[in-house]
């Protein structure tokens, strides 16, 4: 007889730990147990990063091997990962064995490569956001899209801080929109998100949703 115990055991452990962690928020006497579970979870999450990187490498090795038009990007990614890893290891050795200043080469990589690239991407994001806002009426010509577009326009016009282009009346409208309808709407959305979050959590605690292979 072939009885598979993996699923029931993992489900029982997940539900049990989940209930204890949740109860720890409300019952002070089991708060210490909650912290033990959370700390263990954080350590496991750190290990998961290592597993994730191995997964990343294996996925991109497959992409290089196949007839994929994006295989060049995969190759660049793997070379960059390897170079950064080697630099990090050299820095660690220099730091711990020879007492040299903290991670100079790694800092150089982040300051001169990672930071400029991410800053450029942020700039492109700003342009993309303006493009999306401008093209909303082309994509969805309904009442809500029209309201979205014109409210956005009012907020932008009311936000000008250069003296010649400052329009006092628009500034007042902007403040009112942000403080009354926008804040009310945001609270309504957050309430909905909170309700959804609670039901998702309860479904997992009850074992209806099992995102852990159970």
């Amino acid at each position: 007889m072939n009885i598979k115990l993996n699923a029931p055991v993992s489900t029982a452990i997940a539900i049990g730990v989940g209930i204890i962690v949740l109860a720890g928020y409300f019952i002070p006497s089991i708060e210490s147990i909650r912290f033990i579970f959370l700390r263990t979870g954080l350590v496991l999450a750190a290990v998961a990063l290592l597993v994730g990187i191995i997964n990343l490498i294996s996925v991109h090795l497959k992409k290089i091997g196949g007839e994929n038009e994006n295989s060049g990007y995969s190759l660049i990614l793997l070379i960059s990962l390897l170079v950064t890893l080697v630099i990090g290891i050299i820095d660690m050795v220099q730091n711990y064995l020879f007492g040299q200043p903290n991670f100079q080469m790694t800092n150089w990589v982040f300051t001169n490569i990672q930071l400029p690239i991410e800053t450029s991407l942020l700039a492109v994001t700003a342009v993309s956001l303006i493009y999306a806002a401008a093209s909303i009426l082309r994509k969805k010509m309904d009442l809500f899209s029209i309201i979205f577009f014109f409210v956005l326009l009012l907020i932008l016009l009311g936000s000008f801080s250069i003296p010649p282009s400052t329009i006092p009346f628009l500034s007042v409208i902007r403040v009112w929109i942000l403080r009354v309808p926008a804040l009310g709407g945001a609270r309504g959305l957050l309430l909905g998100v909170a309700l959804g979050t609670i039901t998702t959590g309860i479904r997992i605690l009850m074992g209806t949703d099992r995102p852990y292979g159970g």
Partner: protein
Amino acid sequence: MSATGFTGIVVIVLFVGLMIFFTIISKDRKSANFRPISGYKKISEEINVAVEDGSQLHISLGRGGISGPDAAAGLAGLSLLKQVIEKSSMCDYPPVASTGNPVLSILAQDTIRGTSKAISVAEKHTNPYGELVGVTPFSYAVGTLTTIRDDNVSANVYTGWFGNEVIWLTTAGERQSSPTIAGTAQLPAQAIMYASASDPLIGEELYAGGAYLGGGKMHLASISAQDVIRWIIIFIIMGSVLLNLIGINTFIEDILAGSL
């Protein structure tokens, strides 16, 4: 126990009670009467398209972890991934998933593998992609672009925790002329998705994937429970306004502070 802690327990017990109650009284899925959500209708349509033309869906689960306020969004994404795999068992290729968080990546792989096994999808068709694309917002967004531009991807579903970088993903889907269904728990990203996605999921719609895509009775019951609690919240807000108007303006605060 503080008044806030007591309120929390009451809310959770109320939710659990309501969900069990609605599970018991509900008869079947057909009798469920929910408002239509275009995003989930589109996902069902795109699964049919994928079955017919041999393409696959791309599900991006965002970069939220499982230990913070971003956890529920990621877990809701995993639930949706499971439903999509179950519904697309006839597809030549199972959905491809991408994440920006290592824990979520492992859970996504486990969901794909476990669900494919449960519905007896042949091993050779099981594609355990739950790829960790990048761990920073922009590396995640840029890495996901190659999957979106894959000719075999017919539609993109973004459900999870995203920031402003989601604009890259939604506009890339638009350029590929593929439908984009997007939902997140973060408010600024919701506004971006509304402007740029073809079918945005607003607010709690993100968490309703299971109920709309053929999940069990508990999924349907959780939607009904949310509706009941929402009405209770509306009555509390309206009651507070009325109490405020007649001059008793600290009644609710006193209850929450435990000073009554």
